[in-house]
């Protein structure tokens, strides 16, 4: 090769390499890592000196926390005519109901769906009717829903070896033996769904407080779901993967770490019917359950108060409680907030308080927690950490030939939990200007503590790699070509794990019954984490207060 040819060849190779590098650079997108509530939350843990209070609020009822429990309590108080209450938002306003927005497109950064409520979930049905989501027959066997909010077809699909199948566990994708076992499992849980205890209550009801206390069913809480499946002879790999998936999806841990009662409760408790949707349908919105948070906040008249504004409540204050104690006339909370010039603090005194924050926080905030019968060291359920990752896309990535995007898209065998499409419920024919895919990952492959530690240590690239695993399996590099940015929310204390024995946690039982100056309301009280449970405790506290 002479010199000129060499230069030419070198030039061509260089250009190719440069355009290759350019291509990969083009495929990069900005990724933002958020740890909701972590900074202020750790303030509590580390107990720094607090600045002297700047303001003092007095109210009748103080609600600490603005997640599902806090908002439901506020909604119920407002509904029953209360106007003197204050909600302190906490380090993460709206908690697991938080959502984000990209242009017009909203997306969940936490919870995203609500199954049609069963007969026992009277509180949810009443709420949905109040919020205009149930149009008729809220407490009837089959209410009539506003169909815009019932998940639209196609609901879900499963990627198996590079081919999408309709549904989460399609019979077409199972070997014959597997599908027989699959049927056996589902008729088994259908029976359990109808089973009732000697107290007349359903064996598996939502809220868990409405379930039968019969020892026969409670005995299932003594072993793990995986052990139960083994005992009952459920061995099909696909079925086991699917059941493990449901545990990770709902409880943040695999079937081997979750109580058999909880594993079955997932299937047997969801018996919500509707006149205009199929059994087992779910309600969802672009912002996920953030839509319920919006509506609840509106119905409760929570208007963000200006710090200098002395007009009476109802209102919502920005801030995190660092201490809550009982005083002679009632309760007193010291709260901090991030002001323009650094941390600021204020005091709220009230007749009663609803502590609607996670129990790991309550353990630090509430003075003399042990006096309520709850010893954090002993009774605090393990907390499963979660990664909720939103990919803002300027257009839909190309699907495999013949495949149609569903609302929930799952990859068989993956350790992630698939992705949901925020614009799925849009009434529109043309493509939206933007869509957001939300990918979920419960770090079930590590112990909760190790996972939290890993999350603080991991580089953005490592987090992104984990967060985008299913999307990359589904779309390859085409994902990045459509992606404007990604936002990963690290929820270190995402949800309480219903480990074997969770039903007999005495500390939780004690907190549920607290009815003095301080009441407790949080999903954690149920020992597992779904919207209905959190709302149940919020509702119950508010009812207790307003009927007193």
């Amino acid at each position, binding site marked *: 090769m002479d010199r000129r040819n060499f230069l030419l060849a070198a030039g061509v190779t260089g250009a190719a390499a440069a355009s290759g590098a350019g291509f990969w650079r083009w495929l990069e997108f900005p990724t933002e890592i958020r740890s909701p509530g972590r900074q202020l939350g750790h303030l509590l843990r580390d107990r720094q000196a607090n600045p002297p209070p700047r303001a003092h609020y007095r109210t009748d009822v103080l609600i600490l926390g603005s997640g599902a429990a806090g908002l439901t309590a506020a909604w119920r108080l407002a509904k029953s005519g209360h106007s003197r209450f204050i909600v302190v938002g906490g380090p993460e306003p709206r908690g697991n109901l938080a959502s984000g927005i990209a242009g017009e497109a909203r997306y969940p950064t936490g919870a995203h769906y609500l199954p049609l409520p069963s007969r026992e979930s009277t509180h949810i049905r009443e709420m949905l009717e109040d919020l205009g989501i149930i149009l008729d027959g809220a407490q009837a066997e089959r209410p009539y829903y506003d169909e815009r909010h019932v*998940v639209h*077809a196609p609901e879900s699909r499963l990627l198996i070896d590079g081919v999408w199948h309709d549904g989460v566990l399609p019979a077409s994708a199972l070997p014959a033996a597997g599908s027989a076992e699959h049927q056996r499992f589902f008729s088994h849980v259908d029976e359990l769904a109808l089973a009732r205890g000697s107290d007349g209550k359903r064996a598996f009801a939502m809220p868990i407080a409405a379930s039968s206390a019969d020892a026969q069913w409670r005995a299932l809480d003594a072993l793990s779901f995986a052990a139960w499946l083994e005992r009952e002879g459920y061995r099909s790999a696909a079925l086991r993967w699917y059941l493990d998936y449901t545990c990770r999806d709902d409880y943040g841990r695999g079937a081997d770490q979750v109580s058999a009662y909880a594993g079955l409760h997932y299937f047997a408790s969801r018996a919500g019917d509707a006149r205009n949707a199929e059994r087992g349908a779910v309600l969802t919105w672009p912002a996920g359950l953030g839509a319920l948070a919006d509506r609840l906040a509106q119905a409760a008249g929570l208007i963000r108060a200006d710090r200098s504004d002395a007009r009476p409540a109802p209102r919502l204050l920005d801030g995190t409680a660092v201490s809550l104690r009982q005083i002679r006339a009632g309760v007193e909370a010291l709260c901090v907030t991030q002001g323009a010039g650094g941390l600021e603090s204020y005091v709220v005194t009230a007749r009663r308080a609803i502590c609607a924050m996670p129990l790991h926080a309550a353990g630090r905030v509430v003075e003399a927690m042990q006096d309520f019968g709850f010893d954090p060291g002993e009774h605090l359920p393990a907390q499963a950490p979660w990664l909720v990752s939103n990919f803002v896309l300027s257009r839909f990535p190309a699907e495999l030939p013949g495949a149609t995007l569903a609302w929930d898209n799952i990859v068989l065998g993956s350790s992630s939990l698939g992705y949901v499409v925020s614009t799925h419920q849009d009434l529109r024919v043309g493509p939206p200007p933007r869509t957001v895919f939300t990918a979920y990952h419960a770090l079930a492959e590590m112990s909760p503590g190790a996972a939290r530690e890993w999350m603080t240590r991991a580089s953005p690239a490592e987090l992104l790699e984990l967060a985008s695993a299913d999307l990359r399996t589904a779309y390859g590099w085409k994902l990045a070509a459509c992606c404007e940015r990604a936002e990963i929310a690290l929820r270190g204390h995402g949800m309480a794990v219903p480990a074997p024995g969770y039903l007999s946690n005495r500390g939780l039982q004690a907190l549920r019954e607290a009815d003095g100056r301080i009441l407790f309301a949080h999903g954690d009280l149920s020992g597992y984490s779904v919207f209905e449970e959190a709302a149940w405790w919020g509702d119950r506290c508010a009812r207790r207060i307003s009927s007193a």
Partner: protein
Amino acid sequence: MIDRILILSVFIVASCGLAYELIAGALSSYLLGDSVLQFSSIIGCYLFAMGVGAHLSKYVRDEDVLARFVDIELLVGLLGGLSATALFLTFSWLAAPFRTTLYALVFAIGVLVGMEIPLVMRALHARSAQFSELVAKVLTFDYLGALAVSLLFPLVLAPRLGLSRTGLLFGMLNVAVGLWTIRVFRKSLPRPGAQVLRGAAVFALLGGVFLVSDRLVTWAEKGLFGDEIVHAVSTPYQRLVITRWQDDLRLYINGNLQFSSRDEHRYHEALVHPALESAPWARSVLVLGGGDGLALREVLKYPNVESVTLVDLDAEMTRLFSTSAPLTALNHGSLADPRVTVINQDAAQWIEHSEQMFDAAIVDFPDPSSFALGKLYSVPFYRLLARRVAVNGYVVVQSTSPYFAPRAYWSIVATLAEAGFRTWPYHAYVPSFGEWGFVLASLQGPFSPPQHYRIPMRFLDAEVTRGMFAFAPDMPRPAVEANRLNNQSLVHYFEQDWHRVIR
């Protein structure tokens, strides 16, 4: 002798080169419309690529000239020969970006063709022909070849063989030149054996495709159209193709016939007049879809109508139907009427947020063939629509065929009923569609089919109207569900019903 062979090659090579260019140009203006732009950009790209090829040819070493020439012939034969077939298939069956494929192919072929003549010249020069004579001869035959093809292509080849087979034929000619060169110069080629094998393989491939290409092309054209394409655009939402055959103007959206000017009056009279004749008090009318302005044309015939709002997703569609002369002649310039407001927005989005009220609504959406379109025929959509229409006003919905897709049709009726409407289903015979269905609906108003029409009609009279609201025994009403977003049963009905018809 040898010289003569090379010169003959020049003739063939040149004709092949021009043929590929013509094929690409013709094919792209056929498929994409706008022939002037297509042709000139294809030619530009091709000539530029030839320049690149000519430049690259200097990097071929003198001793390799013949071997590379043979390689190039085989490659051009393969690429050029298959180009038309490949483009057809890409266009009709693949999601691959057609334009990118087109220009990439044209460029690649151009580069290869551009190398041919310089290499032949060098080969001849090395065999000591006199240079001045050589240049003259080569270029003469080059241009002669071009002339031959430029006449043969439009007069004989394209009409007789079609673009696809013409391409394959020229491909085989290129390969033949390659093989012939190998035969004649086998002594001066380093590895003639391997090249013969390769050449034979390419030749066999092209021949094979030539034999089945008829079937391939019918397959590829299944979604395409027989008639002359007057206009074709791909908008962000859909592909609009307008064809003309004699006095018949047709609009296809994504390959589906929307209307034929021969009988669209039947469709649009049936769609609009039973409702509007029954609402002489109607002042404001809503038209959803219908960006062709034809339903609008019928609506505007009523002097009592003071304002019409037309919502169509596709701005390109309404622009086309308000600017193109043959199309405005067809819709009587309805889109430019001062009573009309055109809104280019997703109808489903618009209706969710609009607060206007109307006395009548004409809903003329594409058939519910996908989950996205199915949302426009759902209970929630009709509930939103109900909020926009006066309680005694009328809504009409084009509802696919009660004859071919009975379950889909009656599911739309059930859906309107579920959303709180009283319904009056009817149908009309539109030759280019077959038996076609509509549903008239009202929240509270009474309705009976009009006995006469205030404005002159081509299709409708009292007799025909009465017949439209009666369903023959061979069009019974099946038991079907309303279309809920949760299961979109309509989309399944539609797919299954039509699948049975088309098979």
